């Protein structure tokens, strides 16, 4: 799978996460009066959005690695972290909305067209930040957390404005919250896709065999490669390699490759290595798979 396709899938996951979260938010919003307090109402709403967004983005790693079990585990873990992120994010967002909205309300002029959209967009931005943070937390990657925060912040702001302005200018029956949630998911997905690449250590592109053309983005400080599905890079369709064959560690700008199973030789630029400091454009041969290490 190329980087472009990977980005497209992340976008799709963001949109689908928004679409999946929407019916649940409608149900909860419709039942606001039944809640005993704003605290519980907002927490439940945040949890619903967080769980679904978290689950959909959590599926990404499994989809990229083509491992069904990893999709389910990723969704589960993503949902749990999303739940926490969603609750915290929406509570902070609601607190910000009450604070800023209250200020704007006292200056009534343009409140509907300026004050309320700004207040709501800021509230959404906090939700976005924490939902975006969740996937990075799940992946154990500080970089991905940073990416998520940016995407969530922007997506939340745009989503909040989209919600408010579509509500103002479009017919009453128009599903404004759906638009807001889809924009939020889309922006987080877009940022994961774009910035994930630019903040990565590099790419490993498969040059032959069934996975030819697939690009693995190296955005974790330790990458393991082998036949087994538990590796970040699974080369299942290839021969002459161990379940866990190679480890690449990124430290202080250097990429150190280690052959974990000397029974099977690992070649870099046609030379067998046990430990090797990788440089861009090196050609790796791991079992029958050939990979090209590149930056862009």
């Amino acid at each position, binding site marked *: 799978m190329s980087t472009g*396709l990977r980005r497209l*899938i992340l976008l799709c*996951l963001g949109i*689908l*996460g928004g*679409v*999946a979260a*929407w*019916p*649940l938010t409608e*149900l909860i*919003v*419709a039942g*606001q*009066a039944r*809640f*005993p*307090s*704003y*605290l519980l*109402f907002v927490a439940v*709403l945040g949890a619903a959005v967080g769980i679904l967004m978290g689950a959909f983005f959590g599926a990404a790693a499994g*989809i990229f690695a*083509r491992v069904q079990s990893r*999709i389910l585990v990723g969704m589960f873990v993503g949902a749990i972290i999303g739940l926490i992120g969603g609750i915290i994010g*929406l*509570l902070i*967002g*609601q*607190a910000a*909305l*009450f*604070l800023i*909205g*209250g200020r*704007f309300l*006292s*200056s*009534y*002029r343009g409140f509907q067209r300026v004050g309320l959209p700004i207040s*709501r967009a800021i509230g*959404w931005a906090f*939700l976005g930040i924490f939902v975006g943070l969740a996937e990075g937390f799940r992946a154990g990657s500080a970089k991905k957390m940073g990416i998520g925060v940016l995407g969530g912040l922007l997506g939340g702001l745009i989503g909040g404005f989209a*919600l408010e302005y579509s509500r103002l200018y479009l017919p*009453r029956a128009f*599903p404004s919250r759906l638009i807001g949630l889809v924009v939020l998911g889309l922006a987080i997905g877009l940022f994961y896709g774009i910035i994930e690449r630019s903040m990565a250590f590099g790419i490993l592109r498969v*040059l*032959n*065999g*069934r*996975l*030819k053309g*697939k690009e693995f983005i190296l955005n974790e400080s330790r990458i393991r490669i082998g036949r087994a599905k538990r590796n970040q890079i699974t080369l299942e*369709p290839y021969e002459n390699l161990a379940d866990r064959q190679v480890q690449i560690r990124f430290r202080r700008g250097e990429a150190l490759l280690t052959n974990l199973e000397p029974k099977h030789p690992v070649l870099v*630029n046609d030379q067998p290595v046990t430990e090797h400091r990788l440089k861009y*454009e090196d*050609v790796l041969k791991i079992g029958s*798979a*050939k*990979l090209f290490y590149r930056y862009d």
Partner: protein
Amino acid sequence: MKKTIVILALFLICTAAFGYNLRLSQIDASRLLLTQTVRLYVSVTDDLGVPVKGFGPESFTIFESPDGQAFERIEGLTEFKPQAASAEGINFLLLIDNSGSMYDTPEGRPTEDAARMRITHAKTAVRTFLGSMTSPEDTVGLVAYNTSYTLLASPSGDKGQVAGFLDGIQKPGSEQAYTELYAALTLAVRDFQGLGGRKAIVILSDGENYPYFQHSGNPHPEFGNKIYAYTEPIQACVEEGISVYAVNFAAEKDANLEAIALETGGTVFDARSQEELAQVYRRIHEQVAGEYLIGYRATMAPAEKKYVRVQVQENGQSQQAARFYFSSTVFGLPYGKVGVLLIIPFVLAFLALWLISLFKFEKKRGPATLEVLKTRVGRAQTRMMPLGTKKTVIGGSRNADLTIVGNPGIKEQHATVLYDAKKKAYTVVGTGDLTVNNRPVKTKVLEPGDVIDVGGATIVFDDGEV
């Protein structure tokens, strides 16, 4: 608008039946999210603007409404505190009448003696007021009005700024000499809306509303044919919790100005008494210190803003005041009924996710190829080149099979890929500099995934097998 009229009507009716003035001067909803409580600062004053003490929690009843029409009674208070002195400052907006009549004597006679003019007394009163301001938390702004409304200084902590503008106030020409008193008060509320906290308007006037349109017969340059009624500033002030304190410069008190002051919880001061003038500031502070703090548990009805009505009862008579606070939630208001059809997008999203997860994104068996990954200099005319059984030439020539143009370092026929039918293998042979897998070679039998570098062009060989 309809809602506010209803609130105002209730307010006015009750005022007539009750000896005191009730004002909801501040709503503190900062604890709404964490504790579900809202705190109200309620001012009860007599006709002299003096806080009335002695009301207990049983005297107050709180109502809340999502629309300003259907009010729900709140059972039980969470907090009650008489004389809940607040350390918060007060924002003052001083409105000075600069109409023609302010250049007469207090008795209403024309004069050329500046010392006897009402405006001179008004300016002195403003200076007295500024001099009596002691709290550093307070802010003050200045407005001059006649036919027009002019904000001279927005409320700030800089008292010197206000004093400076005061000196610049000049006698108006005949067109500017009218008195849009009610309009000025209404517009002052607008200028005050951006500020939080407690707000008080101090108007220095001879109490006369003398609208331009009514008396000149010409449309007002800003308001056109509109003539402001005295109820309009009352309505605006009640909504915003602003009290109006009037300093009167006429021999007789104007009935409407007095009504505006009293019904907004303020009072009228007599400008002829220097002693009384010096007390204006202290009296306003005393009023704030005499407020009742009432806390209650908020309802959960969805609304962008919630209306609160506080009602105070004594001896079978009651009075009420209403204001609203911000109660919008991040996801906004419900649309109405939620149908079962909502399940469809939920199911579809998961279905789409499942379909995406089924994609293998794997390559199928195909022909042997040369694929140009990138070129450092120049560009490749073909990105993907299927290899046949004949030889394939890579070079800068237009006649080459895989042409890389714009790179002078590449020879016309830089490298050739040959097919050995017996061994079913491809071999690359270089006439110029050539590397395969970053190693310089002259010739090499190619393996799938080998990376050929021809003058900075990175080309991947693949035999097409999977």
